């Protein structure tokens, strides 16, 4: 092969090609990844006549190598001489599209789809379409599943006779003997429908769709639900009732929960695809049933869609539909036995308030929010709290605040630190909506308590939370409410708490910055300096780090007379970390 014929300039390429045959997988893989370099060096002609046949012959390899090869070949058009010669890439990709391993096959199909666009219409019929046919009539299921993904890319660009053949092949695969192939066909049904002429959609696709949607295996039926969205979008409104709806109704009541789950999961898309009239007559009762389904999985999927479904209802009688049909089901879900259902609902229920308006929200939704705020599952409560902004816009948060507080306090003291962490993250949002007064009165103590939590992640989050609060409420508020409490901790017997003081000072200085030099110099700096005498080395080197952050805010007098001596002392500390950070601060602040 190349390079063996004594052409010196190709010697390095010969090395790479040699590695394509190496025993070590890693070397083969490296070489395959540099395939474009090899091809580039060989030139387009030798790539076509030598490299590609070689690759086609040696296709039995580790899946990892094959995957890399399948991917590379998708970008090879230019390297074999442009669109004119792109069909040379088909033989190796055809073999790759028949291997067992799904990821390799999928990648080969992806590359084939890509290069199909680079074929001229003539080449598509002469080279590409025969390949699709060969795959579609392959012995083993792998080639037939691959074929399913290729019909839609060649269909639009071939003659009508070939089109008829393609439709025939697709039909055959939809009733294939093995469920694997039927699944592949069902998953490509929507895509294929999009490229077909409307008449054929009505005559061919609908019958295939109906057949797949009543397949004996639920794994096939559920894929037909996905196709339903695309098909319904393609058809004129007047045909939907006869062509699509019987199948969709059947799917919504399928005996397998997986199919019903799929319907629930795709509900918003289905709703848009079938339009407002059918939604009113058919989908509303179907949705009610899904919300009351006997499997929690289905109820949770439907609950997730409650807000979107209601939003997309036709406006003229949206409110009436929600109030008489949807809300009663929602009320039941609030006390569902399954926590996933409740928390799915809690993540969207607040969105209903904007749709229903102030009065309905107060009368009907508020009790539900309050009930969920008292739910035993923390995730439900968190989901409510994290969506408070929607309600705030409609009724103002005061309505809720009385119930909110106990819920927040309970979450703030939850035994699981991840729950505490989650509620901390909502504090700035809550503070913004509840206002300074309410915050100072009720929540400030909580925020301070988190600073001395026994889990570091919580103390860290609490510090970060302080920063956001200061950004919201301003430096003056910080000076009056936060700073005294933070500085008080500097004398705490626990060194971890003393360090928290330093961390808080860092963030406060970062927010208040230069205009509030006063607070920094007068109140915080003395405390930091005093802590440089701490017994614990961790505190001392954090003093050095803090000074480095505070330094830029201070005036040069304070820097020279107060900070410099302390840093110099720390720079000669017995602990090497303290020394290191002190020296770093000295050089950053240019005090040397």
């Amino acid at each position: 092969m190349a390079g063996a014929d004594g052409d010196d300039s190709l010697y390095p390429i010969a090395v790479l090609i040699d590695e394509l045959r190496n025993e070590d997988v890693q070397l083969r893989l490296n070489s395959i990844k540099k395939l474009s370099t090899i091809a580039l060096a060989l030139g387009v002609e030798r790539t076509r006549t030598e490299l590609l046949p070689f690759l086609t012959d040696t296709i039995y390899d580790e899946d990892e190598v094959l995957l890399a090869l399948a991917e590379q070949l998708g970008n090879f058009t230019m390297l074999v001489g442009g669109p004119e010669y792109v069909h040379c890439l088909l033989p190796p990709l055809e073999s790759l599209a028949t291997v067992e391993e799904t990821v390799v096959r999928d990648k080969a199909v992806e590359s084939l789809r890509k290069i199909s666009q680079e074929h001229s219409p003539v080449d598509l019929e002469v080279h590409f379409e025969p390949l699709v046919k060969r795959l579609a009539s392959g012995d083993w299921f792998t080639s037939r599943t691959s074929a399913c993904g290729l019909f839609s890319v060649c269909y639009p660009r071939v003659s009508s006779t070939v089109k008829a053949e393609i439709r025939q092949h697709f039909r055959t695969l939809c009733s294939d003997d093995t469920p694997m192939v039927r699944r592949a066909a069902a998953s490509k049904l929507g895509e294929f429908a999009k490229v077909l002429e409307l008449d054929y959609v009505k005559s061919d696709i609908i019958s295939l769709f109906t057949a797949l949607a009543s397949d004996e295996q639920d794994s096939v039926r559920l894929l037909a639900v996905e196709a339903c969205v695309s098909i319904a979008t393609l058809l004129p409104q007047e045909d939907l009732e006869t062509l699509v709806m019987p199948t969709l109704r059947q799917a919504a009541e399928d005996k397998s929960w997986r199919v019903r789950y799929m319907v629930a999961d795709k509900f918003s898309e289905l709703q848009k695809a079938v339009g407002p009239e059918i939604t009113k007559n058919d989908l509303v009762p179907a949705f009610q049933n899904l919300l009351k389904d006997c499997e929690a999985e289905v109820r949770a999927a439907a609950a997730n869609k409650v807000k979107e479904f209601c939003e997309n209802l036709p406006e003229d009688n949206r409110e009436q539909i929600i109030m008489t049909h949807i809300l009663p089901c929602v009320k039941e879900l609030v006390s569902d036995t399954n926590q996933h259902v409740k928390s799915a609902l809690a993540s969207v229920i607040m969105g209903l308030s904007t749709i229903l308006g102030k009065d309905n929200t107060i009368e009907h939704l508020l009790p539900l929010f309050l009930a969920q705020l008292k739910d035993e599952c923390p995730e439900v409560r968190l989901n409510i709290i994290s969506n408070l902004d929607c309600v705030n816009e409609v009724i103002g948060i005061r309505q809720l605040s009385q119930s909110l507080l106990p819920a927040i306090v309970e979450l703030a003291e939850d035994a699981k630190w991840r729950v505490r962490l989650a509620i901390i993250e909502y504090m700035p949002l809550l503070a913004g909506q509840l206002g300074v007064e309410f915050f100072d009165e009720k929540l400030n103590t909580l925020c301070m308590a988190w600073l001395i939590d026994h889990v570091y992640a919580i103390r860290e989050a609490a510090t970060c939370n302080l920063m956001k609060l200061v950004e919201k409420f301003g430096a003056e508020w910080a000076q009056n409410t936060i700073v005294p409490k933070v500085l008080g901790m500097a004398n705490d017997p626990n060194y971890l708490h003393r360090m928290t003081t330093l961390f808080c000072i860092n963030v406060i200085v970062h927010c208040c910055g230069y205009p509030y030099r006063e607070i920094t110099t007068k109140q915080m700096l003395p405390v930091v300096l005093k802590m440089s005498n701490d017994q614990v080395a961790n505190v001392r080197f954090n003093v050095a780090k803090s000074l480095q952050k505070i330094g830029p805010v201070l005036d040069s007098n304070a820097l020279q007379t107060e900070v410099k001596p302390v840093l110099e002392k720390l720079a000669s500390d017995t602990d090497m970390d303290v020394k290191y950070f002190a020296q770093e601060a000295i050089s950053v602040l240019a005090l040397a």
Partner: protein
Amino acid sequence: METTKLPPSSPSSPTTSFSVPSAEKVDGFPRRSMRRARQRRSHSSSQFRYQSSQVELTPLPLLKDAPVAELHDLFCKKLQQCCVLFDFLDCVADLKGKEIKRAALNELVESVATSRGVLIEPLYPEAIKMISVNIFRTLPPSENPEFDPEEDEPTLEASWPHLQLVYEFFLRFLESPDFQPSMAKRYVDQKFVLQLLELFDSEDPREREYLKTILHRVYGKLLGLRAYIRKQINNIFLRFIYETEHFNGVAELLEILGSIINGFALPLKAEHKQFLVRVLIPLHTAKSLSIFHAQLAYCVVQFMEKDATVTEYIIRGLLKYWPKTCTQKEVMFLGEIEEILDVIEPSQFIRVQEPLFKQIAACISSPHFQVAERALYFWNNEYILSLIEENCQVILPLVFATLYRVSKEHWNQTIVSLIYNVLKTFMEMNSKLFDDLTASYKVEKQKGRNRRLLSHVSDGIYSIIHHIIFHIVSMYCLGHPLNTDHGS
């Protein structure tokens, strides 16, 4: 004509052979899964929902008191009565009805098992209908989405008190001396079998145990369904391997296959070989291999015992899928290789020894001592040892360098002493070859030291080559589309 033999382990009464793993562990650490198990309810089954209106059951006269003339009619009525489903999630709902159905099922089981002449033709459709209504249902979603069959307690089927009796009835029905396959085949058809196979995904091991025995009987008695059953099992496995990686009944299906393979006629049909190469071997790649490995290895060995010519496919297949990171699986693979070598024909051994012993050498140098140990145990197996001895000229050079190096380097003393034994065995086998290899190893090692000095240079060389080539070619192609499209 293919025959099937009952698997030795298949119990005549599955209830006695199965025991639920004890929830009380003595190690004092409450296991994560058990805490969870206590919190959750038993399974909900999707089946109850489809009962349109609840029927009030009234007890019928006992079968044993019925006059002979009315026996079949009564039997039929009882079957119909048993088609009513009950809600077992609500354990106090309709207790009376549940009790009537339980008693009826018990009577039916006993009647089919003990009295002769009960099973007449008109009863077949009724019996199959009763069985279908009760057992066929979409299995509910697992309550534990990350259900790990090795770690977690399975969720049990809530309606088991009835379901078990229905399965028991089905089994007795199939095993009854009066059972007529020619009549049954009209009702136990392909659709029925497909639904039966889907139930193997049940999380409840008691249910799978019954299904296993039942499917085996169906395979044994209804000859027309055999090919179909094999094909559908294939599909289940292929889906498991390439699509979902989740199916609870793989071990049970393999156990049935083990005895099916045993009955294959010779020479093996292409269909069966394809099953071996394209399904059984790839099954080794599954993440949950440990759950069904014993049954899988049994099937593989069965194939070899049937027809030695498949040996090479098997060994090369296993080598292809050899675990790269999971040492637990590596130990299982080694165990399977030993089972295979135990029955391998010497002529077949010669065909695979080279790649095989390269892999074994790689295992011996594994830093995980269990892997190294498992590989070294091969030398304790007399038959394997005799194969090695016959082919010492080929094998010793393959493993020598590894053995020599690992004996000096391995951290684990047990491994080191095992290797010494192996080296000693080889020395006794062929001392001349051993000495030659020792000498050349030392020369190679010296060379290797020199080469290592150079290897730092060559590591970087490919990236340099890549850049140089690219640079040169780009210069040539300046202005040509190539150089803009393929910059790297």
